[in-house]
């Protein structure tokens, strides 16, 4: 046990305060976040998030894989929005390669990304409400989430770890009946959002637990690197989808919900409104879905169709070469950022001209957002800490990587 002495012990700074350990197995910390609280009675004096319990060394693993083998790893970073991760990585490598992606693949990516956003927000809403004490919302949210997961299963064969966006396009042609089912879901979903709002928005208990709690100003949010709904809840009108569009988002019309209050309720309203806007984007994507190929015309990078491999020698050779020795990527570096459900997700990919990435770094939105916790919670009650953690929508897989 000698090695344990190296671990520092947090001591209370005053006589009347005590140290309280919360997590890493606490149900309200959404995974394995550990928070060390210094409390004076019920009041929080100091708060120190301790992370790393889910560190899996994905960035290191990426350096030992071919470019195409990294795609399944990206699913596992943020397991609530795997497709957003797939997209961000694919876009980064495509930028390094200089690949043009066909319009149908781009629209499919937008469509699935918005479904992923709704999926992630549903998990957030359910668990956040559960943390604060509204049990039933959780059941409603997971009912609709199941529909989205079935759509993902239909399209990729996987409910969660989809790996559906590949470098150069999509993995598979969307199956027959997918668009109709996605359309049905999109038609049905807005009234479900009304249902959630009926349960929460005007609920006085919900209001008491969230309004004016864990307030953060726009200046603090920017200085601490917050992004996504956490930033927009403080009144900063910035959304990467609209302001620095990628993957064809410039073709879609949608509003970016913001709120000026900067409290837990403001972040809640932003996310709920975002779900409605996402549905609007899903409708646009379904109505305007272009025809055409789903993969870029780059035989050295994109795997050939199974059919072609049986009839064309070239396709078979390229398939063999991509699988066994990967494809080389011109030397260089790119930083690609996308708007994930949690904020700015960025992939910084460095290539040294070989078939394996020299370095892959993920900019995790939650890691930066987690830094807000201190500003949000100091001087407030322990119960508000739970509300604050829920309101920044953390996913520990992404924080720890």
């Amino acid at each position, binding site marked *: 046990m000698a090695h344990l002495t190296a671990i520092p012990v947090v001591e209370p700074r005053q006589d009347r305060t005590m140290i309280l350990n919360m997590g890493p197995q606490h149900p309200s910390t959404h995974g394995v976040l550990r928070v060390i609280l210094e409390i004076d009675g019920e009041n929080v004096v100091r708060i120190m998030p301790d992370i790393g319990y889910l560190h899996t060394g994905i960035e290191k693993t990426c350096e030992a894989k071919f470019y195409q083998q990294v795609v399944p790893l990206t699913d596992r970073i943020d397991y609530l929005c795997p497709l957003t991760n797939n997209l961000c990585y694919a876009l980064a490598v495509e930028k390094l390669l200089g690949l043009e992606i066909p319009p149908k693949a781009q629209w499919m990516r937008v469509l699935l990304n918005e479904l992923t956003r709704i999926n992630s927000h549903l998990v957030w809403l359910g668990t956040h409400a559960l943390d604060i004490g509204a049990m039933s919302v959780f059941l409603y949210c997971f009912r609709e989430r199941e529909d989205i997961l079935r759509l993902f299963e239909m399209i990729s064969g996987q409910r969660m770890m989809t790996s559906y966006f590949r470098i150069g396009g999509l993995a598979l042609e969307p199956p027959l009946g997918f668009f109709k089912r996605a359309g049905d879901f999109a038609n049905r979903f807005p009234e479900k959002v009304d249902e959630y709002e009926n349960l929460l928005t005007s609920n006085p208990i919900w209001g008491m637990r969230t309004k004016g709690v864990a307030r953060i100003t726009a200046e603090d949010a920017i200085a601490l*690197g917050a992004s996504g709904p956490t930033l927009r809840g403080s009144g900063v009108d910035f959304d990467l989808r609209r302001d620095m569009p990628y993957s064809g988002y410039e073709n879609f019309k949608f509003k970016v919900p913001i709120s000026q209050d900067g409290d837990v309720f403001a972040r809640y309203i932003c996310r709920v409104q975002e779900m409605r806007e996402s549905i609007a984007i899903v409708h646009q994507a379904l109505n305007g879905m272009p025809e055409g190929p789903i993969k870029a015309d780059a035989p050295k990078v994109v795997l050939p169709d199974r059919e072609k491999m049986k009839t064309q020698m070239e396709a078979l050779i390229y398939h063999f070469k991509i699988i066994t020795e990967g494809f080389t990527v011109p030397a260089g570096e*790119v*930083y690609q950022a996308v708007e994930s459900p949690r904020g700015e997700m*960025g992939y*910084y990919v460095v290539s040294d001209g070989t078939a394996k990435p*020299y370095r892959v770094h993920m*900019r995790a939105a939650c890691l930066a957002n987690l830094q807000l916790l201190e500003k949000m919670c100091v001087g407030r009650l322990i119960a508000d800490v739970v509300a604050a953690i829920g309101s920044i929508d953390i996913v520990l897989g992404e924080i720890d990587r």
Partner: protein
Amino acid sequence: MPSVPAITDLEQLKDHPALALLLAWNPAAVQSAKYDRDEITICVDRCYVRDVCVLLMDDKNCPFNFLADVTCVDWYPSEPRFEIVYHLLSIAQRERVRLKVRLESASPMVESVTSVWPAANFFEREVFDLFGIRFTGHPYLRRLMMPEDWEGHPLRKDYPVEGYR
């Protein structure tokens, strides 16, 4: 594949707002610059990194008020071995700029930018943890991901991906 060659000539790039500002302030601070794949990278001398950040953040026309990311690339065994990479974003102007600081393996040390953007706190701790770069002036430079008593810095290139250390 269509690829536009990178521009590395300072003369051609001097119209970029961030670079123009830095060159007007102190040409000695800028070691080199590169425009590649629609992204600008400015290499900064390590003595000036904090001043450069303050300057870019307070820029009137294009304030780079948002620190998106800090990370590091290990170019072992070549020297200078480490590249600290800062990604800055101007929320008002929707502009990005990448700053780079090169460090020799003998003294992997650079001034912290936590006093400019508090957001750098976790990012720099992560780089310290996984690469062993010391950030002078950081308020709480401790390991972030790995256990406190871990030996070595896993993302360094001389650290094996699998097997025993």
